[in-house]
């Protein structure tokens, strides 16, 4: 990879239509910086985006990209990485995309442990449809479709990842630019599925989970002396319902990514101009 790649190379010339102040700006900047910092360039990077405000990210970044169907970004990323292990795959989506309509894929992408990065822009609200409850909304959060709150506990995506056998679980905050970038960078560098839940506040429809709320409540695991390779310690912070954390919660140092486990190492786009040389062997098998 060329060493002179700058993060702005990952920026398209399309102006974002996110609301001024949206957390997604910070989330995206950190992702672009982390990609540049880890030696990638737009021509070897594939960004997959879901549907929702977060899904627009593919348009605002410059790389190979697919803006897909609601909830199915992870399967697309999986296909890209298995077919092309040489390509850096970054999947982005929102909390609705990842933990509601795409929750099934999340569980299986986590356990499959394909070497890619998944940044979920978690604003605990449906923004693009103008303010309905999301799977991470608080149970008493009042919205147009839940006037008395959801009366359901929010999904704990970190715990869901842990229960699914994750090899890398982290959480960051869009506004803490440096830490967010560091954490995403670590997720990219991780050998396996790097999952980062990014607090990405919605300034228009969520007046509870605000920048101020996260600034006041976030506890940085680095400052707490947390050891992410300690599974028990990870479990404790992930299941701690009292505090909001940022940092890498869990990291399996012995993680073996899917491609390596299954010997999927070749660039599948390269094929011969006719049938493979020994293809008649396939026919002879039927004797």
């Amino acid at each position, binding site marked *: 990879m060329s060493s002179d790649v700058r993060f702005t190379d990952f920026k*398209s*010339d*399309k102006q974002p239509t996110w609301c001024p102040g949206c957390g997604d700006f910070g989330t995206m900047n950190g992702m672009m910086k982390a990609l540049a910092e880890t030696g990638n360039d*737009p*021509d*070897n*990077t*594939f960004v*997959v985006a879901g549907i929702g405000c977060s899904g627009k990210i*593919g*348009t605002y970044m*410059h*790389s*190979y*990209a*697919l*803006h*897909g*169907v609601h*909830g*199915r970004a*992870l*399967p*697309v*990323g*999986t*296909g*890209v*990485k*298995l*077919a*092309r292990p*040489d*390509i850096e795959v970054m999947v982005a989506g929102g909390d609705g995309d990842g933990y509601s309509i795409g929750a*099934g*894929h999340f*569980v*299986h992408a986590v356990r499959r442990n394909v070497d890619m990065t998944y940044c979920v822009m978690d604003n605990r609200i449906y923004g693009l449809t103008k303010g309905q409850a999301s799977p991470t909304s608080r149970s008493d959060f009042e919205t147009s479709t839940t006037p008395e709150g959801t009366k359901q506990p929010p999904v704990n995506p970190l715990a869901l990842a842990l229960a699914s056998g994750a090899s890398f679980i982290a959480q960051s905050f869009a506004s803490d630019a440096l830490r967010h970038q560091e954490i995403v960078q670590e997720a990219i560098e991780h050998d396996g599925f790097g999952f980062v839940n990014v607090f990405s506040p919605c300034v228009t429809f969520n007046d509870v989970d605000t920048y101020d709320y996260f600034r006041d409540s976030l506890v940085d695991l680095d400052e707490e002396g947390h050891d992410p390779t300690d599974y028990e310690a990870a479990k404790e912070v992930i299941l701690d319902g009292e505090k909001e954390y940022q940092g890498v919660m869990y990291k399996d140092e012995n993680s073996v990514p899917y491609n390596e486990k*299954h*010997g*999927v190492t*070749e*660039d*599948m*786009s390269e*094929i*011969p*101009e*006719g*049938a*493979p040389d020994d*293809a*008649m062997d*396939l*026919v*002879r098998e*039927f*004797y």
Partner: protein
Amino acid sequence: MAEDLNWAIGGEAGDGIDSTGKIFAQALSRAGRHVFTSKDFASRIRGGYTAYKIRTSVDQVQSVVDRLDILVALTQRTIDENLDELHEGSAIIYDGERSWEAEIPDEMTAVDVPLKSLAEEAGGAIMRNIVALGAACEITGFDVEYLDESLEKRFGGKGSKIVENNKEAARKGQEYVQENYDVDHLGYNLETTDNDYVLLNGNEAIGMGAIAAGCRFYAGYPITPATSIMEYLTGRIEDYGGHVVQAEDELSAINMALGGARAGARSMTATSGAGVDLMTETFGLVATSETPLVIADVQRSGPSTGMPTKQEQGDLNMALYGGHGEVPRFVVAPTSIDECFWKTIEAFNLAEKYQTPVFLVSDLAMSVTEQTFPPEAFDMDEVEIDRGKLVDDDDEVDEWLDEQGRFRAHAVTDDGVSPRAIPGTTDGAHMSTGLEHDELGRRTEDEDERVQQVDKRNRKVETAKEQEGWEYREFGNEDADNLVITWGSNEGALAEALDYLEEDGVDVRVISVPYIFPRPDLTDEIEAAEETIVVECNATGQFADLLEHDALTRLKRINKYTGVRFKADELAEQITQKLSEEVPAQ
């Protein structure tokens, strides 16, 4: 036409019916005989009647008929289920020592063989089906030694002792019949030839075609009757640098395959109708992002869970029209097992040349039927790969950059096909989306750009219509007054029905169509015929509707939706009957 023999083994699901049948089919094939197999089965792993049927002849056979000559019956139900097909010359092999009292019609030859006891003598009761095969060899005058090779193939991995025991079991069955029955009067004496044949089913042909075509990435979710495509590829595609991944559902499977295709790999998924329902969610994205993808639909009886292990061709409209909005797709429906191979290769070429999803529509009957072919029917030297407008060197890429150096992945072109750059191609980075987009792949709601993109996508169909052959296959008498048209797996039964029709003095021309969209225009052929009948395995006549629309006329229809494929003799009768009916009102 040489005399053919119809043989079957039936029992409970879990009795090893399938593998026993396959061993006999392979032995016949090794003896230079043609084989056409079919299966009656229920979806349960154990419990429920199941049968494996073989039609064999020294000539090519491509259909089942309503006749059964030799039946190995492990249960009474096997006999009961097949009474209509059995005749006075039939022989039924059964085990009289078993607890059930076989009720066999007097006019048939009952061959009571202590299958279990003889198997135990050879080394284990589990080999009782093999004893039955030995007995069948004696009755049909087929040398038991032909079984040896297929027993080695089947049991070789389990050690030579097992193989030897099985060979012994077969001989015990053969000898028992020889010593206790005079079966010569039945008159069966299976001729052998020096010909080499391969024996495979439609799903295996699709899988083999996929590898030959350069498919390297397959994502799927198990579903009857498509799973065996995935099972075929697993363990083989890796030898060519590919991979099969089992997704968590069909929603995921098609999206993984889409990802593989966007990454530049020839990618595929296969499912059945119920899975296509789920995949339809992503279908529009595949089509509008102009991604080359092959989606195989091995149809089974619907709607909903329907009859999962039964035959039907009811998904045609879904393949043609599934999904919201308007976007072109190609629909290809191979008409025979060897064509499953060739049409799969063609599907991959069409997908990449026109950057469009291609539905490869097969069906249950073709997926479970094994048929013999000379190996040259799958001549790999004949395989051609056309990757379309894939741009990979700098000059090619430069040609398609806009003034700001951005790659125009959805460039509006005369033929509707845009250049395609895959990840890793320098300066080819671009976005694709399910949103309506401009040439760069970025969202637009501009009226002009919208119309340009819709027209461009539709133009690909016009280009393909001009550039590709869209040929159909033809049988019978080209100048006959009566025309019979069919699609998909009915071809074999129809081709053989011609023999019966000829005996009855009925002259017909048969057209078998492998392309549903785009498809050949048959207006002239329909107009030239006095009568036209469309044959298909569904209740409403989905293909007949299309042909009526094309030719602006009304056609007669033969529809079967019992869950069982057409049989040659039955079809001949129905055609004769249909020809005598009034033409439907215009």
